[in-house]
């Protein structure tokens, strides 16, 4: 007979408790090993081990200390440094050490920090810190438990490293996006400007200045976010340059609600869409192309639509582009979609309405406020 609420044997309950403590420590550790994250994780780790005192260190200093005997705090860092130095960062050796009472000089008679177990934290094949458990006496059980905890923490830190590298990859993609604008567009723009140099020198001069401002914005190094107003200003410059090239073949209509101009958006999240629209909507056909950019105020969010009446696209191809298939032409699309989702959550991905021969409409929704998102 099993009743609801019956949690199994004592051993089962111990397992549940251990798993629960581990799950409490995990979010902090997933941010990487810092004094702050160590501070938040350490009390759960100590509950897991059940020792009177526990320390987390990097390779030279103590990051966090939990439990009694915090006057030993500085010693933990020194122990870590001392043990890392001879072994180096070679994690293949059996590295866990016990600490004798002689290495823990203490004037307090009742202090339970007499002996300790030190186990390394290994991430990506390198020792980056230690877990140190202290107790009146060292048992084989404590050594084993400390080793296991150190390995589990290492695993979490590995995952943190993975998160960090994913973010770095995303940043690299933004950098690539900045660089990606250049080749075609630069040749074409300079060509168009050159054609005005003799016939209309003033216009050529203005276009060159627009070109300079445009590149300055696109290649700017700092800041992940910008305001919709700045993004639109850059798009304006881009369109002026494209119109110099295409003349009356490019018809642009704008309809911007001024209320949404201060909205903070990821840097270069609209411009690639406009570029796509010009490229796909116009370059392939010889007739006049219409481009429409609309920004609506929708209460707590804003909606931006970029629409062209060009050749359109196979919806399946678009779906693959959004899924990140880099072999396709619309590299910008997948990148913008990924960054919007990463910033505002999965509800805020791109919506693309298209069919072959029916033009393309890309819709971006952006919330007016999201925690941690600001233009400065």
């Amino acid at each position, binding site marked *: 007979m099993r009743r609801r609420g019956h949690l199994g044997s004592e051993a089962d309950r111990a397992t549940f408790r251990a798993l629960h403590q581990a799950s409490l420590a995990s979010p902090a550790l997933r941010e990487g090993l810092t004094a702050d994250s160590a501070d938040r994780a350490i009390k759960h780790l100590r509950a897991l081990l059940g020792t009177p005192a526990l320390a987390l260190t990097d390779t030279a200093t103590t990051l966090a200390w939990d439990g009694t005997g915090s006057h030993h705090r500085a010693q933990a860092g020194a122990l870590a440094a001392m043990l890392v130095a001879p072994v180096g960062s070679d994690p293949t050796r059996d590295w866990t050490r016990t600490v004798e009472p002689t290495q823990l000089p203490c004037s307090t008679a009742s202090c339970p920090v007499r002996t300790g177990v030190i186990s390394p934290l290994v991430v990506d094949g390198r020792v980056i810190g230690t877990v140190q458990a202290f107790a009146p006496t060292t048992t084989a059980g404590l050594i084993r438990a400390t080793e296991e905890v150190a390995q589990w923490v290492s695993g979490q830190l590995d995952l943190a490293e993975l998160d960090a590298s994913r973010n770095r990859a995303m940043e690299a993609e933004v950098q690539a996006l900045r660089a990606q604008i250049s080749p075609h567009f630069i040749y074409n723009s300079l060509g168009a400007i050159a054609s005005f140099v003799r016939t209309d020198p003033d216009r050529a001069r203005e276009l060159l200045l627009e070109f300079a401002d445009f590149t300055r914005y696109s290649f700017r190094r700092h800041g992940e976010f910008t305001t919709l107003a700045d993004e639109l200003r850059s798009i304006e410059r881009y369109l002026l340059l494209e119109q110099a090239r295409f003349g009356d073949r490019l018809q642009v209509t*704008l309809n*911007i609600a001024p209320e949404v101009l201060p909205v903070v958006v990821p840097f270069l999240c609209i411009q690639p869409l406009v570029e796509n629209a010009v490229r796909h909507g116009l370059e392939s056909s010889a007739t006049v192309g219409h481009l429409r950019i609309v920004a609506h105020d929708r209460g707590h969010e804003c909606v931006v639509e970029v629409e062209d009446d060009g050749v359109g696209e196979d919806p399946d191809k678009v779906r693959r582009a959004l899924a990140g298939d880099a072999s396709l032409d619309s590299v910008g699309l997948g990148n913008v979609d990924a960054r919007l989702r990463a910033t505002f959550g999965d509800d805020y991905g791109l*919506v693309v309405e298209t069919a072959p021969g029916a033009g393309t409409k890309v819709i971006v929704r952006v919330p007016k*406020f999201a925690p941690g998102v600001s233009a400065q």
Partner: protein
Amino acid sequence: MSGDAVPGLIAVLAVTVATLAIGTWGLRFSRTTSDFFVASRSVNPRLNASAICGEYLSAASFLGVAGLLLVGGAQMLWYPVGWTAGYLVLLVLVAAPLRRSGAYTLPDFAEARLGSRVVRSACSLLVVGVGWLYLLPQFQGAGLTLESAIGAPRWVGPLIVGSVVLVNVMSGGMRSITFVQAFQYWLKLTALLVPAMVLLVVWVGDGRPAGSGAGDSWSVPVAGGGAIGLYGTYSLMIALFLGTMGLPHVVVRFYTNPDGRAARRTTLVVLALLGLFYLWPPVFAALGRVYGGDLVAKGNADVLVLELPRLMVDGVGGELLTGLVTAGAFAAFLSTASGLAIAVSGVLTQDVTSRFVGERGPAGTPGSIAPAFRLAAVLAVSVPVLVALFATNVGVAQSVGLAFAVAASTFCPLLMLGIWWRGLTDAGALAGLAAGGIGAGGAAVLNVVGVQGSGWVGALILQPAAWSVPVAFATMVLVSLATASRAPLHARRFLVRLHTPEVLEVGG
């Protein structure tokens, strides 16, 4: 009454049509690239200030102030003074930092500052509470207006106006488009200014008769009744001075400013525009002492502004002026009620109804209005309409005063301490919001259900701000000090951002 109803009906129709027309076509005409700089220029402070005033000047300002002054005399001047001076506090202490925080609503600010979902939810709850408390007198005022203008029974007004507002909000026809709201301000000002001028001329033509029965007490700026009266006056001042910053539909308008500096300039213009508007209700009240004595006797002072033109000017002229003030009054509750309903439904959508209904419309129509928002709008409007039908009529301006008291006892401490004190913690904020909300909110509920005390108890319930605001501040500070370890890590960085002027634009 059928003959009397014509100008009122025409005025109401004209306001509705004009509002919808501007909303639909005002800023919708398309532009080409050469106009791009025009298209992508932010809303300038003057236009935004007009819009804030348009949304802010409610039926309480348009109708209530003149009525209060007529009955209560100079002590009631504190209402228009307080409603204006609230923006001075906003200007000096809150406007620019709030804009720099990037928050769109008050719950957003709480989340950004304290990093706590719980405090966010508490703020959402309070926004809905303050919004409902503020919507209630709008619908009651609507009942009064329609009764006076068309002769309809009083319960018709809340129902009709509630439905109009609901349709407006749900169809998106009167979203908080800056241009529409700015138009509403100038309409309201004209609707008060022109009749006031004409009536003044009539009064001078009549040989400037003095008011009847205007005793000394009418011109004393403090309520009678000794210490209790003094308490009531000060309490009202505290509520109005500190409550403005916590009004949900005012705060969202500041988001439209491009930066903190523009937010300050906007507030400055708002002060001027409100000052200009509030000059005129006292004129109506003073003339009412001369020509509208019957209204006081009938206990119908709130309709003074609507009735006075007819009482003073005969024939077509009087009807035209009546039409104009009716239009202004209708604009007053339409714009404020719509603005509030949108703010309340926005919060309800984000934090309540989207959990039950999908937030997004059917695929392919992301621009359409989501079912969650519709549900929220129905909730936001129907609750105060129902209360307006069954609750006792507290008086338009007094009821608004209670909404201010709740806002002053909850959001004012949160904003002030959140912006100016690093030590605020989530636990402290929550405790303070609870203390102020239960204190002032409880008093407001007692008022709405008609509980009245006598002497000091009555005064403390009728004007709770003087005790509930200090209680809320003290609770927030003390609990924050007791839970100092919970202070968010980013507090210092966040405050630096709030108080650093935007730098001159360096390098695009």
